């Protein structure tokens, strides 16, 4: 392999392990929430975006060289990451690098990243330039805290070609995951994607460490056959068939793929429990984020906040119960917000009542609106996405005074009173106003 070091051979910048964070996915099952942004940029837990979790895990584990692979709607992600200041990833050597699809010489049209492994394949040059011993592959879609240095120790101890982090899932759910079948000491002998009759309950978390020289070889071979080369579908089975050593690393803590509206809502609600199973208040494993300036929050006279988490800059004059609020949300007098997730900059007018809703950034609800009422009828257009009673509003959506909105509704854009027959949007309806 051609070795090249940015700092010359005398430099001490050799990286034992670098991370490659796959952040290009759309997350289409999150519906209107990912209309304008990639899934890793979706807000989570009030202050954070989903990508903050793997990024913070990296720096907390001592991995200071992170390549972030973007593709779908990367603008917000790029703004959020910047030069990596919030994570101390603004470094002289290493730090964070955004890796976007690009045109390569001899191939004038350029290639999108066609699969997870193909994305890494297209960035072999970047990895070679950093000359690591090991490469950590992460996904920007998951919420968890993990010490990757322990994963690396495990990988080195077993002298593996690849180590795959796995979660023990309930047997009845195993058929929804990529399952690792192992024998003694968790050595993997078989991988099955969503098996009908699972032989084990060890689900892949999409977190891998590869010995770079081994992965490099397989990537080059596999991409000749599969232009959409994928770690689960192609790379892992190929390595197994070549007889390479692959081990499963059992992770026993909180891990959530917040891939659907319901699981996204559930994972947020986990944080408001008196003793949450996912604790953001620990000092030794902080989650860092790009917060801008962080003014205090104000609870006014008549304000009532219970069983909720509320972020910087919020102004609350009404009631907030069992909810998660991002920064700079304003709840006016007499308004009631229950079981809901309100993202940055949302405003709720006087006397409005909101139940089980997710509002994306800068939503604006007028006064005396009722949202999330009526029967639980699945959404007419996208019943697979909106079916658990949660009404979802996309970013910059506004709702006029006095309307009644049902369950499983989807709203997007500036709506006005004429859009609501009898001031009503019944359960399961969609109201999408494209911007002019």
């Amino acid at each position: 392999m051609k070795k090249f070091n940015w700092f010359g051979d005398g430099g001490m910048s050799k990286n034992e392990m670098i991370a490659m964070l796959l952040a290009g996915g759309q997350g289409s099952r999150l519906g209107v929430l990912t209309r304008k942004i990639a899934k890793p940029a979706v807000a989570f837990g009030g202050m954070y975006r989903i990508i903050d979790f793997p990024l913070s895990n990296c720096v907390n584990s001592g991995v200071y060289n992170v390549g972030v692979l973007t593709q779908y709607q990367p603008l917000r992600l790029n703004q959020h990451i910047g030069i990596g200041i919030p994570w101390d990833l603004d470094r002289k050597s290493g730090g964070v690098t955004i890796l976007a699809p690009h045109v390569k010489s001899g191939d004038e049209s350029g290639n999108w990243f066609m699969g997870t492994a193909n994305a890494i394949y297209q960035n072999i040059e970047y990895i070679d330039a950093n000359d690591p011993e090991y490469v950590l592959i992460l996904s920007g879609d998951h919420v968890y805290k993990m010490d990757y240095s322990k994963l690396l120790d495990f990988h080195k101890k077993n002298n593996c070609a690849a180590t795959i982090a796995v979660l023990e899932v309930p047997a009845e759910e195993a058929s929804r995951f990529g399952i690792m079948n192992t024998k003694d000491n968790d050595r993997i002998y078989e991988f099955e994607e969503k098996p009908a009759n699972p032989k084990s309950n060890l689900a892949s978390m999409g977190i891998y460490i590869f010995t770079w020289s081994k992965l490099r070889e397989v990537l080059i071979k596999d991409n000749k056959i599969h232009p959409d080369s994928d770690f689960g579908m192609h790379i892992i089975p190929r390595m197994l068939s070549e007889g390479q050593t692959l081990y499963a690393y059992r992770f026993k803590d909180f891990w959530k793929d917040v891939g659907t509206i319901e699981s996204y809502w559930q994972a947020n609600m986990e944080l408001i429990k008196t003793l949450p199973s996912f604790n953001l208040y620990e000092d030794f494993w902080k989650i860092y984020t790009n917060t801008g300036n962080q003014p205090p929050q104000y609870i006014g006279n008549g304000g009532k906040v219970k069983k909720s988490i509320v972020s910087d800059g919020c102004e609350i004059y009404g009631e907030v119960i069992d909810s998660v609020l991002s920064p700079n949300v304003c709840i006016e007098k007499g308004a009631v917000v229950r079981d809901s997730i309100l993202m940055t900059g949302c405003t709720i007018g006087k006397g409005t009542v909101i139940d089980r809703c997710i509002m994306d950034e800068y939503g604006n609800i007028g006064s005396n609106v009722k949202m999330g009422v009526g029967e639980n009828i699945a959404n007419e257009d996208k019943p697979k996405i909106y079916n658990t009673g949660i009404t979802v509003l996309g970013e910059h959506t506004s709702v006029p005074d006095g309307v009644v909105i049902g369950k499983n509704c989807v709203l997007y854009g500036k709506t006005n009173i004429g859009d609501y027959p009898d001031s009503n949007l019944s359960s399961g309806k969609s109201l999408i106003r494209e911007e002019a």
Partner: protein
Amino acid sequence: MKAIGVILAGGNSELRLGKLASTRAASAMPVGSCYRAIDFPLSNMSNSMINKVAVITQYNPRSLTDHLSSSKWWDFGRKQGGLYVFTPYISSENSFWFRGTADSIYQNISYLKRSNESYVVITSGDSIYKMDYRNIIDYHVQKKADITVVCKKMVGKDLTKLGVMQLDENDRIIDFEEKPIEPQSDIASLGIYIISRTLLISLLEKIVPEGRYDIAKDIITRYRRRLKIYAYRFNGYWSSVGGGIMDYYNANMDFLKKDIRDMFTKQYPYIFTKAKDEPPVKYNDGAEVNDTIIGGGSIINGCVYHSVLFRRVYIGENSVVKNSILMEGCYIGNNCTIENAIFDKQVVVSDGKHVYGSEGNPVVYKKGSSI
């Protein structure tokens, strides 16, 4: 018009702030849930496009230098300009502590000499205000002033701790008295000065060797006839935390007023502070909070009324906090009552304890106390 900044953060206020200032300079006093006093002048500098700023400090600078350890939060992390922190040092010619405001700049005169910007903006580090210094420089130029002093009409306030000035019909300063026993007007200096860099250098090189060390007394008052010294009338919000316990208490409680809070936190340009990466505030089942600002990372199980809570404060079940200021990391156990109190950082109150101050005379506990 290009300018450099000087923030005088060396004031010793232990006499006036007592226990609260024993571990920190007045400029490092925590204010408004998540700021320190110096964030306000520093952000004003940054927002006025002054990107080279010296902070001159002397008393208890540890928490101040810690706060300033990275200049990126105020956008001063640059190749051109940046943030300088000057503390007293010993050289072969000089082993003095700073003997006054003018002396503290004089001892760092190379900062002025090595710059090439036309003007210097000098401000104290313990005042809470929002100001675009560019407007004052414009005024300074338009008035053809030698020095401009920012002032504010303070009707019905105690002016005996401030500099009080008398102005002629053109707002030229005709008299200036520092800490007067009998104030002759209600126009007080805010300790903010605009002066040309070269004039400041020549004045300092003249007065300090004469044994005169104070900007107000030895430059403004003494030179008021020789130089054209004008007052700029500022009408916005201004308060100082260095003047005493009640000044500090009131400056914090001012953040509960919507117009003042919005001015600092919601209206551009914003006040910056060091990022601490705290999670959201968690309100559990027993939480009841009214008329209170709270900093990130706090956990509330009890009642809080008309108070200022900083970051990472814990309030236990069935506890009541009223009219109080609780700084970062305070821990209030279950079944406690806290009224009219100022708790410095990390004060721990065990279950069932009661602490009462009185209105106008809050009880103060120093950093790390346990009750």
